[in-house]
């Protein structure tokens, strides 16, 4: 793994078994994440977009081993510079790694235990990892609460006393207490009001600068991702269809799915005619994905080859740029400017 990479995902798969009947026989699998490869560089914000059910959340959780991956590797560079495979780490090692990689949840209501006060919630990671105790613990909790712009006076209150945005701040303080280097933000702002979203985004950016954090930012709001992320991954049905620099993805779109996805972003421009690309049909079931290119039943450029052969996931970027895409015709179709 190269020196500037923090994390590398190799052919990661997560299949959920479907069990039926009296004997709980396995009758099929939901292929939520179906073989993905990508890297995350130190200090960057990597966006992960795709429609609902495409496996974004599962991918994010499989990296942290919040769900057990079916196969593949997740290589992570620890604070000491060692590279470890997260998927093979034992309990004790995993506990250590998890101090470095954390998750911010989408729903600030279900992700905080309603029976614990803010103090207990923020202090729990410090306690279980034996980072602080007694007086030091109290001091550290106050620092963390101030860090996320909440008032320490409120730390004896329960989560039900707070709004969604404030709860998300509590969640961030909880994660921050471990001093992680890599954070997966799983739709961290999509459950919040737009005005609150901006505040949380600002907070996340502030913290990123201050602590040199690396984010994997899972979202479905494309304009937000464009604003926030250095690079963007586009997922479809458990697979990555395109990875590119944020700017490039929007100006030199290569994959027909990305093109359709980006064309759906609402824009404020009265002169511009609506050029939304409407995709045919529904997303196929991840239990039984189509043969060949997964996107072919809905693609506007579909050819015979697409139905038979799975496209190669390859770099089509010019002059050493990284622009990965998985489409047979990426070279022929050429880059498009969607935005």
């Amino acid at each position, binding site marked *: 793994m190269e020196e500037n990479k923090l994390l590398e995902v190799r052919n990661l798969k997560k299949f959920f078994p479907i069990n039926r009947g009296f004997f*709980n026989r396995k009758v099929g699998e939901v292929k939520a994440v179906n073989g993905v490869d990508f890297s995350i560089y130190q200090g960057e914000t990597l966006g992960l977009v795709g429609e609902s059910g495409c496996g974004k959340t599962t991918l994010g959780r499989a990296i*942290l081993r*919040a769900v057990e991956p079916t196969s593949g590797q997740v290589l992570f560079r620890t604070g000491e510079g060692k590279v470890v495979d997260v998927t093979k780490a034992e309990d004790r090692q995993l*506990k250590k790694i*998890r*101090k470095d990689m*954390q*998750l911010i*949840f989408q*729903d600030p209501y*279900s*992700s*905080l*235990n*309603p*029976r614990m006060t803010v103090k207990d919630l923020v202090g*729990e*990671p410090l306690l*279980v*990892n034996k980072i602080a105790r007694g007086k030091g613990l109290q001091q550290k909790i106050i620092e963390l609460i101030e860090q996320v*712009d*909440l*008032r320490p*006076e*409120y730390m*004896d*209150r*329960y989560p*039900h*006393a707070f*709004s969604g*945005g*404030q709860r998300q701040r509590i*969640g961030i303080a*909880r*994660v921050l207490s*471990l001093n992680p280097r890599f954070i997966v933000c799983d739709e961290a702002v999509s459950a919040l009001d737009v005005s*609150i979203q901006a*505040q949380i985004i600002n907070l996340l950016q*502030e913290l990123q600068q201050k602590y040199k954090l690396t984010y994997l930012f899972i979202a479905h709001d494309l304009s937000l991702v464009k604003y926030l992320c250095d690079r963007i991954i586009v997922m479809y049905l458990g697979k990555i269809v395109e990875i590119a620099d944020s700017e490039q993805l929007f100006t030199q779109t290569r994959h027909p799915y990305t093109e359709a996805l980006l064309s759906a972003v609402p824009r404020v421009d009265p002169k511009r005619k609506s050029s939304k690309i409407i995709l045919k049909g529904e997303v196929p079931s991840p239990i039984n994905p189509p043969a060949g290119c997964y996107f072919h039943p809905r693609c506007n450029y579909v050819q015979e080859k697409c139905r038979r052969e799975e496209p190669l996931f390859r770099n089509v970027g010019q002059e050493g740029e990284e622009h990965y895409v998985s489409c047979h015709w990426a070279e022929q179709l050429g880059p498009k400017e969607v935005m």
Partner: protein
Amino acid sequence: METNPEIVFPEKQNPLESEIYLASQWELIWRRFKRHKLAIAGLVILIIIYTMAIFCGFFSPYSPYLYNADYINAPPQTLQFFDQDGFHFRPFVYGYEVSRDPETFRMEYQIDHSKKYPVYFLVRGDRYKLLGIWETDLHLFGVKEGHIFLLGADPMGRDLLSRVLYGARISTSIGFIGVFLSFVLGIGFGGISGLYGGAIDNLIQRMIEFIKSIPSIPLWMGLAAALPQDWTVIQVYFAITIILSLKGWTGLAREVRSKFMSLREEDFILSARLIGASKTRIITQHMIPSFLSHIIAQVTLAIPGMILGETSLSFLGLGIRPPAISWGSLLQAAQNVRTVALTPWLLLPGVFVIITVLAFNFLGDGLRDAADPYGK
């Protein structure tokens, strides 16, 4: 850092709100429970019944074993405040005039207005042991001369009220102890089932289905009949509780299992896992507190089943046997039509069973509604 507009400053809040903000789970449950009037009534009734059961010696006017051949099947006396002279502040009861029917040889009781027995509070009477420790002869009420049978007397001339109060001791505690055993078994098996899943879960679930499919009365009868005849009252009592809870735990185990299974998927449990909390910590600090209130409500609703179980068993003569007293064994005396027709007051222990069961159901209902204060 700039100030955050989201923050509400304390002076803008009313004190009641901030009190709710500081309220723990149990305080929130209590707040909701208080609004359920019927449940509060149930709670009050149960507190009264249990107090009387615990201090049965003090509340009952006589020893439950004191028999008197002069008062066989004496009917209940009513407390009186008025006589020919008008109102009396001190209540009294009229004595009986006993005669024997020359044809049936039955004792016949007539109210004798010439015999007035005033009722006194805190009188000295039969000796008993309060809570089984302190020996005393103080009773809440009684008469200094004559007799008082507020609920009548049984075929051996024993005071039914005293017997009901002493019977409450066994009948109401059997529910608690039985449910406690069910609770332990239920949380144990349900927890293992829900936490590990897979083959263990399958095995436990099939076992529960098997136990649930056995008809209860024959099972109880079979087990109760197997109890050795020479066992002491205490031994029989515990054996009966175990028999009752043998079936009772199954429903609870399923409840616990489903709670564990749904909680496993909760975000806040995942969050605890990700920050490195140990399995023990997650179970004891996050999972059990999340469903304990539900389980308590569930348990409250299970107690009436236990009380009814004991009553039916003892009624059939298979549970608590005389000389031990329980509501079921008291009802056993009222098994034939003759009793129902001639001495209907012997059915009164049944009324106490009904009141207790209803009170538990109301209480459990209220608890169930209040158990999840974070729902809508």
